[in-house]
């Protein structure tokens, strides 16, 4: 038991590296918030564009989305971080992680929103159109609000799963939680900073899980 405490709860090491891990937490929060906003917004936009059913455009959206969903985010991060400089595009690690996770979240969000759009009863479209609303108006005021509510549970899950991938930033030197923790481990020779990192992730994402659950109940309405 004492060796367990020595390995994961060495207070001396923890106190020494806590400020660094704290800075990592801030970086992680920054990336996470940006990814959630831009990823969901882009996903929603793609789903809306897809709903106009322009054949060529839809092919492109489906191809992009399917590719992004099948690639491990780490592969994309490495590809962009190490590949793009060769053609003269230099982006910092922070931007690369944000960009890749945004694209991946957008891809999954698009699929979720699209499924939501399709699951709204046809009668809703017909009723809206019969009162003179145009296609876009029916989409924005009648169909989309219902689709978005239905998608909150799967979207919350997917958003958390993808946002946790900010930890991948460590491989390209983004000073987020995992990066600070592993650096501290190699300096101190003790795993306690990693344990602190793990605790930080739980503290960070548990509220998001609860927030998702709250939104679900807040926006749910009884089905007839």
């Amino acid at each position, binding site marked *: 038991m004492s060796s367990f405490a020595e390995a994961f709860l060495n207070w001396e090491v923890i106190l020494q590296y806590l400020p660094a891990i704290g800075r990592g937490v801030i970086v992680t929060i920054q990336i996470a918030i940006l990814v959630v906003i831009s990823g969901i917004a882009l996903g929603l936009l793609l789903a809306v564009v897809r709903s106009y059913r322009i054949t060529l455009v839809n092919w492109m959206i489906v191809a992009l989305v399917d590719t992004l969903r099948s690639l491990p985010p780490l592969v994309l991060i490495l590809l962009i971080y190490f590949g793009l400089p060769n053609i003269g595009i230099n982006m910092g690690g922070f931007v690369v992680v944000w960009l890749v996770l945004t694209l991946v979240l957008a891809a999954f969000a698009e699929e979720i929103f699209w499924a939501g759009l399709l699951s709204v009863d046809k009668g809703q479209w017909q009723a809206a*159109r019969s009162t*003179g609303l145009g296609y876009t108006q029916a989409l924005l005021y*009648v169909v989309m609000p219902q689709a978005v509510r239905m998608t909150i549970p799967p979207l919350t899950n997917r958003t958390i799963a993808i946002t946790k991938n900010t930890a991948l930033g460590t491989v390209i030197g983004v000073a987020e939680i995992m990066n600070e923790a592993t650096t501290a481990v190699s300096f101190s020779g003790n795993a306690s900073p990693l344990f602190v990192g793990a605790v930080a992730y739980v503290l960070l994402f548990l509220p998001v899980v609860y927030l998702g659950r709250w939104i679900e109940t807040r926006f749910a309405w009884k089905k007839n």
Partner: protein
Amino acid sequence: MLQVVDLHMAFGTLEVLKGINLAIAERELVFVIGPSGSGKSTLLRCCNRLEEPVKGQVFVDGTEITAPKVNLNKFRQRIGMVFQSFNLYPHLSALANVSLALRKVSKRSRAEAGELAMAALQRVGLVDKAQSYPNELSGGQQQRVAIARALALEPKVMLFDEPTSALDPELVGDVLNVMKDMKDAGMTMLVVSHEMRFARNAADRIVFMDQGVIVEEGAPKDMFGNAQHKRTREFLQQVDH
């Protein structure tokens, strides 16, 4: 007021309407009856182009709404539609259901749209339910809100697609009463329904459809009393209690 000329409609190779001609005068209430699959609902949906007819014309108040360049959204406001399954917007209150098109299509201010929506809810007797959401209303109340949603736009013609078929029997009366009030107020109405007693009492004319054609039409007393065609008599025997 509503005129349908040689209307043809097909889903793939299945011909649903095979040349329908029908003229409905102002203030007239016309009932369309017939077995399921006879094309009644499709006829109704072609009248506001929720379904695009293959061939033929539809005129509303003298304007051809099947013309290629017609401003369809504008004309749909002149044609109210009530659906079998109500199709109220579940995320909006009764009042917002009624006022949405007033605000977004008629471009009325929020206050003005609210007043007109309340007036429409008044006509269907549901002012006290203005703030209720659809899931808090009975089926009959939901259908009356749906009627108010169409009425608020001051349509020239109202189309009813089996408005009481999804209702529990004890709720049917309220909806039929609202429809009767509309008839008395001078609305032009085209109704697809199996409410034969209502047809007998309120309709000016009954149209019997089968297999995509109008078999026969006439005043209720003639149709119920001595229909000319065997198919009409058989159908009426089955449904008329």
